[in-house]
């Protein structure tokens, strides 16, 4: 039985260079055995001498990449692809890339893949790549919630048109992006290649982030906390489920690497709004400190309340390791 096929999202605000990036990626040999869902063939200017038409909506590029248009629902396009593959009418593809429209919130697409009774068995959520225009990105983040949601959902942020922006504007945008989504990898479009950006989110390490609150894009802010000692998985699951049930519409993103009591390796968790991906057991810790890290991107919540709430729930643990790791008078959560 095949493992579920990861689905990656390529998103970004209108005119932010998604299609230009995709055009370049389509020629990359690393994208062979990939099915790409786009809105219209015409938009990306496929060379008709370099493709075989499978049906009205699917073409096979000479690079080995399968290119499909989404007419209507993403779910229908994915089901059609799955059906073609199962019948042997197209070669087996190992990943799917969906280019969203510029005003799309990534959350509904991710939810569709996770919740659809058929899709959830054959596809898994990969990573989210968001393009940001270096010239207009900062003002879009200040004025458009769609742009903020796209940046918040990203595992990789690709800054486009950097050569058109002044050094000051580019530096300002980098600061805004790092503040809004400190857990995402930040790349210039010139440095982005398919192999580097199409890594499933669960296999990426959470970078160490500065020990400070960040504020960006109006009321949207990111908050990170580092946890010494172990995390009780059961209590954490109950806590985060409750938190997202009550405040999921204001929490755009949660991402973490946890030192779970009783486990040698870190457990990665990723969530976008109320959707949390299945936790991934990572291969190894990046360093000897084995510190858990949690990053939230949200609007209108008190970071201190989140930190305190986590501590109280973690203390409900029955696991001796989790209890022993906390020294009297020393908070389990070191920094926020």
């Amino acid at each position, binding site marked *: 039985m095949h*493992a579920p096929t990861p689905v990656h999202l390529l998103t970004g605000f209108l005119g932010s260079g998604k299609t230009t990036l995709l055009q370049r990626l389509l020629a990359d040999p690393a994208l062979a055995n990939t099915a790409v869902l786009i809105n219209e063939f015409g938009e990306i200017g496929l060379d008709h001498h370099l493709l075989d038409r499978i049906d009205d909506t699917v073409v096979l590029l000479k690079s080995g990449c399968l290119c499909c248009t989404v007419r209507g629902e993403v779910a229908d396009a994915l089901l059609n692809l799955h059906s073609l593959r199962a019948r042997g009418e197209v070669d087996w593809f190992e990943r799917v890339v969906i280019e969203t429209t510029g005003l799309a919130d990534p959350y509904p697409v991710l939810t569709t893949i996770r919740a659809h*009774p058929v899709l959830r068995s054959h596809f898994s959520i990969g990573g989210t790549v968001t393009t940001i225009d270096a010239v207009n990105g900062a003002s879009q983040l200040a004025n458009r919630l769609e742009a903020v949601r796209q940046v918040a959902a990203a595992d990789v942020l690709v800054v486009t048109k950097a050569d058109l922006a002044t050094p000051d504007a580019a530096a300002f945008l980098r600061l805004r992006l790092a503040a809004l989504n400190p857990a995402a990898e930040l790349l210039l479009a010139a440095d982005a290649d398919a192999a580097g950006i199409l890594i499933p989110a669960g296999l990426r390490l959470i970078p160490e982030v500065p020990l400070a609150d960040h504020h960006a894009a109006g009321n949207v802010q990111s908050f990170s906390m580092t946890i010494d000692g172990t995390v009780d998985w059961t209590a954490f*699951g109950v806590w985060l489920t409750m938190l997202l049930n009550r405040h999921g519409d204001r929490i755009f993103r949660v991402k973490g690497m946890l030192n779970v009591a009783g486990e040698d390796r870190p457990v990665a968790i990723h969530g976008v709004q109320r959707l949390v991906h*299945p936790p991934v057991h990572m291969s190894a810790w990046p360093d000897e400190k084995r510190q858990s890290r949690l990053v939230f991107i949200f609007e209108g919540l008190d970071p201190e*309340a989140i930190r305190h*709430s986590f501590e109280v729930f973690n*203390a*409900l643990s029955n696991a001796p390791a989790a209890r022993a790791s906390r020294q009297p008078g020393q908070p389990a959560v070191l920094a926020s």
Partner: protein
Amino acid sequence: MCSLCGILGADDHWSSPVARNGVYSRNGEPLTRRREAAERRRVVNAVLAARHMKLDDWQGTSYVLSTATGQVKVFDALSHLWPEAEALAHAQFDPLDPALLAKLETRS
């Protein structure tokens, strides 16, 4: 399995996912699955106690939520727990609520 559409289904909540490659799960073995389910009930009941409610399981396949006045709700997916609890309690279960946290601190 859904008896109407025949689609195989399971309670695949992220905090208790179906065991499969690459996914962190405690559902791989019957013993660890039952131990984890019992521990989850303990933590959830610590929270529900704030509103005099209780969670039980039914044959390891469903959850039974009950109030002190005898109201009962049965459901089969972990993702339904807090919406059902809030509906039954006619109140919110907010993990950021200082009063709830104070009660939990007293217990732990």
